[in-house]
């Protein structure tokens, strides 16, 4: 009745939509880096949007299904196979008992998501199943998944009748490809930060003219960027205050850092910009060595994009749930 890890990946963790309401104690929200992809994977297998999924970095682990399971992969394409046969991302797939899921190479993106129908049965900590690596709590034992870990499913369903004798079956619905195109785009929309005007005029120009390289010092906490040094016309201290996923800070060495899912809750570096919410996922799928450019937008546009994205996801969810219920109904 379990999902067993038969080979550990470099950093595979259980994540959901994050842990909200505890930042006043320094506990960051965390959650999936690419929350859009995590939700798409959940939608495809008929879960709620905020169900916990496994976030995979390459090289990713190998997984053994001890029961028939309905799964979906999203986000990065790590060239997945079931029992050696390639399977596509962004499709719901029923896998038979004793199937092995493996990942072979990076085709695209930085983080893949594995959702399982019924959800992953790990205890919640402060109302979330996200793994908090620093505090060593949440997710699976507060750490990345290791060989021989076993994860149960929260609401197991009998999928045997759907599968017959096949090893796996790709179900006939998918989410559209908008998100794939989105992942290829190299433009990140930002809003000005409170300390934007501290930048010198040449630095403001450079912020938009130059491409920014994602350096090797980039992880779930933040991406350190490389470009020409930016400077401010005042050295006045910024007293520490709250920061957010997507906050772009200017470090003392003149380089920028973008805060990501596991960012610290507060910071005292000048906040020159903020990546808009719908582009967090785009950034989360970029990796060291990738280049991108910043463009300004306004708050209205940022909110409009977010509302449209949410509406789209809810429509997809309704459609996928309907298809899944039909399928189960026909076969029972």
């Amino acid at each position, binding site marked *: 009745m379990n999902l067993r890890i038969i080979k550990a990946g470099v950093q595979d963790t259980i994540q959901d939509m994050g842990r909200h309401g505890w930042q006043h104690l320094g506990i960051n929200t965390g959650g999936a880096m690419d929350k859009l992809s995590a939700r798409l994977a959940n939608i495809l297998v008929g879960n709620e949007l905020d169900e916990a999924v496994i976030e995979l970095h390459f090289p990713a682990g190998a997984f053994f299904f001890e029961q028939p399971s309905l799964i979906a992969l999203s986000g990065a394409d790590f060239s997945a196979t079931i029992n050696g046969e390639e399977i596509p991302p962004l499709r719901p797939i029923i896998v038979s008992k004793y199937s092995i899921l493996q990942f072979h190479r990076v085709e695209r993106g930085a983080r893949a998501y594995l959702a399982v129908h019924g959800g992953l049965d790990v205890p919640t900590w402060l109302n979330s199943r996200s793994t908090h690596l620093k505090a060593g709590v949440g997710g699976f034992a507060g750490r990345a998944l290791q060989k021989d870990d076993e994860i149960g499913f929260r609401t197991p369903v009998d999928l045997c009748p759907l599968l017959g004798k096949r090893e796996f079956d790709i179900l006939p619905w998918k989410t559209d490809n908008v998100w794939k195109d989105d992942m290829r785009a190299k433009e990140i929309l930002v809003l000005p930060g409170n300390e934007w005007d501290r930048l010198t005029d040449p630095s403001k120009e450079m912020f938009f003219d130059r491409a920014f390289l994602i350096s090797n010092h980039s992880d779930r906490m933040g991406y350190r960027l490389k470009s020409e040094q930016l400077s401010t016309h005042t050295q006045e201290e910024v*007293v520490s205050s709250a920061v957010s996923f997507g906050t772009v800070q200017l470090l003392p060495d003149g380089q920028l850092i973008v805060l990501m899912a596991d960012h610290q809750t507060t910071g005292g570096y000048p906040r020159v910009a903020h990546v808009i919410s719908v582009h967090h996922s785009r950034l989360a799928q970029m990796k060291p060595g990738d280049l991108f450019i910043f463009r300004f937008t306004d*708050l209205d546009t940022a909110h409009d994009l977010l*509302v449209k994205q949410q509406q789209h996801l809810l429509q997809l969810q309704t459609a996928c749930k309907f298809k899944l219920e039909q399928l189960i109904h026909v076969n029972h």
Partner: protein
Amino acid sequence: MHHPNLPYRIFPLGDAALTIDFGNTIDEIVNEKVLALYHQLKTKPIQGMIEAVPAYSSLTIYYDPVRNFKKTKDNITAYDHVASQLHEHLQEPIPKTSTESRQISIPVCYDSPFAPDLASLAAAKNLTVPELIGIHTEREYRVYMIGFLPGFSYMGEVDERISAPRKAQPVAVRAGSVGIAGKQTGVYPFHSPGGWQIIGRTPLRFFDPASDNPSLLKAGDIVRFISISKDEFTNH
């Protein structure tokens, strides 16, 4: 008793949060105002608010733009909706929080294995090590905010005679380490990279995920450090 009407400014922190800033300063009265507003918002939350995070002189409110969008009339953005509710809150005088600030003693061992930067800091400040320890333990500190790491408390202010700049590069810091940065002092709840000057270590656990109150300290607490021996540290 009410808080003085301090001037403030509200600005967006990206598209899903906003910050109200009372002056970019480290000041007890300003911090008390921030905490009073924080507690008021906990009892009377703003529509669409996910959580509020108090800092030295500012309070940040995280909101759900999607949920707010549905509730607002035409031409009012989600940001304006939250900001205007906050303005309304501030029209009313904010009562001083009824909860007393807690007094908490933190045992610290200042012996050399736990205090990699103590001797160099004392030398730089023309103090003996016992003098520096005496200055660090002689006064009470206010917990201005919790941030950076789970349970990391920013306390102040330290005596000018022992204030010290951050290190240029962060180094590996052990859990329980007590540090100084500028006029702040604080305790690392976890092993972590850190740039503060480390002058001692506490045996207390500053963050316990299994507890209902996972953080030992909270903003507004009053802290005093007590010097203990290595034996007392080990037997704690």
